[in-house]
C-alpha cells in the first residue's frame, strides 16, 4: 500500500511499501491492510502508526486530520501538523522539540521585523532632519 501524510505546507510521509496502518478515530483504534474497502474518517489528536514490508514500525503524531483509503491500496492522511518518529516512547520529545523550535523561529522573526521597522523610522527621521537643515540656512 502507499501511505501519504501531508500538512497544508508539506508532504511529511510518502511511502510506497507499507504493509499495514493503524490509526484511531472517535470509535476507537482500527487497522488497515491492503485491499481495504474505500474508507473515510476523521482523526483526533493521536498517533498514526504503520509497518513497511520488512515489519519496521514507524509512528507519526498528528494534530487531528482526515484519513482516506482509496482503491484498497492508497492511504492518505491530511492533517494540520505531523511529527514522524521511529520510537513511540520518545516521540513526545520530538514533538516538544518541534513546537519549541517553531516558537523560537516565530520569536526571532518578530524580533527581526521589529528591528527592520525601527531602522526604517530612524532612516526617515534622518532624511527629514537633513531636508530641514537644507531649507533653513
Amino acid at each position, binding site marked *: 500500500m502507499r501511505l501519504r501524510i501531508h500538512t497544508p505546507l508539506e508532504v511529511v510521509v510518502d511511502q510506497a511499501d507499507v504493509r499495514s496502518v493503524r490509526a484511531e478515530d472517535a470509535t476507537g483504534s482500527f487497522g488497515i491492510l491492503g485491499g481495504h474497502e474505500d474508507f473515510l474518517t476523521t482523526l483526533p489528536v493521536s498517533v498514526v502508526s504503520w509497518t513497511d514490508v520488512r515489519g519496521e514500525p514507524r509512528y507519526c503524531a498528528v*494534530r487531528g486530520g482526515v484519513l482516506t483509503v482509496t482503491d484498497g491500496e492508497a492511504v492518505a492522511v491530511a492533517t494540520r501538523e505531523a511529527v514522524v518518529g521511529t520510537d513511540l516512547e520518545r516521540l*513526545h520529545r520530538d*514533538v516538544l522539540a518541534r*513546537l519549541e523550535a517553531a516558537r523560537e523561529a516565530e520569536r526571532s522573526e518578530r524580533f527581526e521585523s521589529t528591528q527592520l521597522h525601527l531602522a526604517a523610522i530612524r532612516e526617515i527621521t534622518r532624511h527629514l532632519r537633513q531636508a530641514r537643515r537644507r531649507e533653513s540656512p
Partner: protein
Amino acid sequence: MTRRPNEGDPLVTETRKRGERHRRWREAGDEGVARRLAQVGVLGWMIVAPTLAGVFAGRWLDRRYGTGLTWTGALLVLGLAAGCWSAWRWMHEP
C-alpha cells in the same frame, strides 16, 4: 526540570500517553488467554463461596436453635453481599 510552555499542548500529551501505553505493553506483554480465563473463573467463585458458606452456617444455626429458615436467609444474603463487594474490589485492583 521546569515546565516548558509547550508541555501542555494536546499533541504532546496525547503522544506521551501512547508512548506510556507502548512502554507498559513492552514491559508486561499481552496477558495470556489462560490468565484471563482464570481471572473470570476466580471472580465467579469469589461470589459463590461466601454465599455457600453463609447458607451452611445458616442451616447449622437454624438446626441448632430450631428457627426454620431465618438464619439461612439472613446469612445467604450477607454472604452474597460480602462476595459481591470483595469481587468488586478485586476487579478494580490495578
